[in-house]
């Protein structure tokens, strides 16, 4: 346990000491939120649009987009540990694989917390509040952390599998594809193109976005929250298992 805490502390310190990792992860989602909400405000005039403020609708994108940066950051950190030989030395310790990965991802969770609180603060300052109240705000932070863990685990898996940072950078566009092919810009039932609506329906990112939106726009919606948390947790568990398996393979090779 002590070793995991040391690893977690190292991960947090390393992440927070890199402004190049924190600043874009905060600035770009906020920039997109700001541009989206002004550029697409007129979309709220569409019949069936769930709110009269596009800012309220688009706030969810900031949380998910921020978490996408976690994947990149986590992957880059793990790849750097592989390239420097640190992971090889760790493999000599009796640490369990999942503990080792979780320790490595603690920094990403710290970054996720900073992001969630920042986006929530911006949402409260410039939006119309959180429909689900204070409890909803707490759940938003929890959902945001779960998604950060899920995407961070995917980043760690890619790094462990490929062993270099370039591969992580190469996979980064795919994460954006997952965001773009979701209900990012309009509710699913308002998407006119059939194939796009089908992809968005199968895409777990849509349910993560809808989980946030339910709390911000509607209030408490058990189904949306269950799907949001379920998709995030499902991705986290699968990615963590894959990362653990990749770590085992890497240790055997070592």
């Amino acid at each position, binding site marked *: 346990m002590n070793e995991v805490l040391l690893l977690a502390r190292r991960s947090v310190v390393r992440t927070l000491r890199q402004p190049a990792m924190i600043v874009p992860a905060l600035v770009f989602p906020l920039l997109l939120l*700001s*541009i989206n*909400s*002004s*550029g*697409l*405000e*007129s*979309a709220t*005039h*569409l019949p069936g649009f769930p709110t009269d403020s596009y800012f309220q609708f688009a706030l969810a994108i900031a949380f998910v987009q921020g978490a996408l940066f976690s994947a990149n950051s986590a992957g880059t950190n793990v790849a750097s540990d592989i390239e420097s030989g640190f992971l090889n030395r760790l493999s000599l310790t009796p640490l369990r694989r999942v503990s080792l990965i979780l320790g490595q991802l603690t920094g990403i969770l710290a970054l996720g917390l900073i992001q969630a609180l920042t986006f929530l603060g911006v949402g409260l300052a410039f939006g119309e509040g959180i429909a689900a109240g204070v409890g909803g705000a707490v759940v938003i932070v929890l959902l945001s952390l779960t998604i950060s863990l899920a995407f961070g685990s995917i980043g760690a898996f890619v790094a462990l599998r490929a062993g270099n940072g*370039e591969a992580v*950078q*190469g996979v980064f*566009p795919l994460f*954006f*594809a997952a965001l*773009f*092919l979701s*209900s*990012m*810009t*309009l509710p699913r039932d*308002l*998407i*006119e*193109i059939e*194939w*796009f609506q089908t992809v*968005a329906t199968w895409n777990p990112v849509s349910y993560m976005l809808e989980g946030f939106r339910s709390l911000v726009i509607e209030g408490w919606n058990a189904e949306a929250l269950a799907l949001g948390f379920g998709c995030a947790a499902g991705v986290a568990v699968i990615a963590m298992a894959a990362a653990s398996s990749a770590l085992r393979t890497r240790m055997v090779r070592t």
Partner: protein
Amino acid sequence: MKVARAVAWRNIHNWATKPSMLVPSLLFPLFFFTAFAGGLSRVDSIPGFDYDAGYTTFVYGFVLLQASAFGGIFTGFAVARDFESGFSRRLMLGAAHRGGIVGGYWLSAAVRAATTIAVITVVALIAGLEVHGNGIDVVGLYTLALLMNALAVLFGTGVAMRLRTMQAGPAIQTPAFLLLFLAPVWVPYDLLTGWVHAAATVNPVTLVLEAERGLLAGEPEKVLPAFAVTTLIVGITLLWARGGLRSAERVA
């Protein structure tokens, strides 16, 4: 000319043979096209949205501009990488006419943009792109796109040659990103609200985008002002790139 050809060939070869460089430059504009044309197609039902050629064509106008600009921006990254690796220093010692170096980067950016535009156009045609303009309109459309590509690569080259490090990436990319997205990207100018509307009013990209969409729809508008403004900015960025070259020569 020889220098320009050699620099262009090397850059095009590097880009075309490295998947880590080729794939993102093709995929990103495609993602944008798919996400906007597919996800936002209902937006053309908003009261006041008046564009007969359809939403796919409306989005294509923007993605065409984006692909052109990013072809230039990514070439700016290549210039920075060449300086960081020390290749540019050797290139400057060996080149008889150093202006040809900038010309070579310019040429390679045009090839990159043309390739990306070709891919996007094929996908867009499959997805329902309707070009209502005649042959002259189409020539005007792609000439404007290549002018955008030129100003982006000259701006990027100027920054990269002054900073001479990959850290120059955000300084090249951020202004281009902001100019592109602070224009009427998803809806016509009249439907923009808030600060983006104010920014779009003074943003020269708005003029270019509206001209491109007019050419696509076969209802050309603001074409001459768009060409005049773009040519003027290309002239300014040419001076900027030349200044960058002089700066790099001083340390070479």
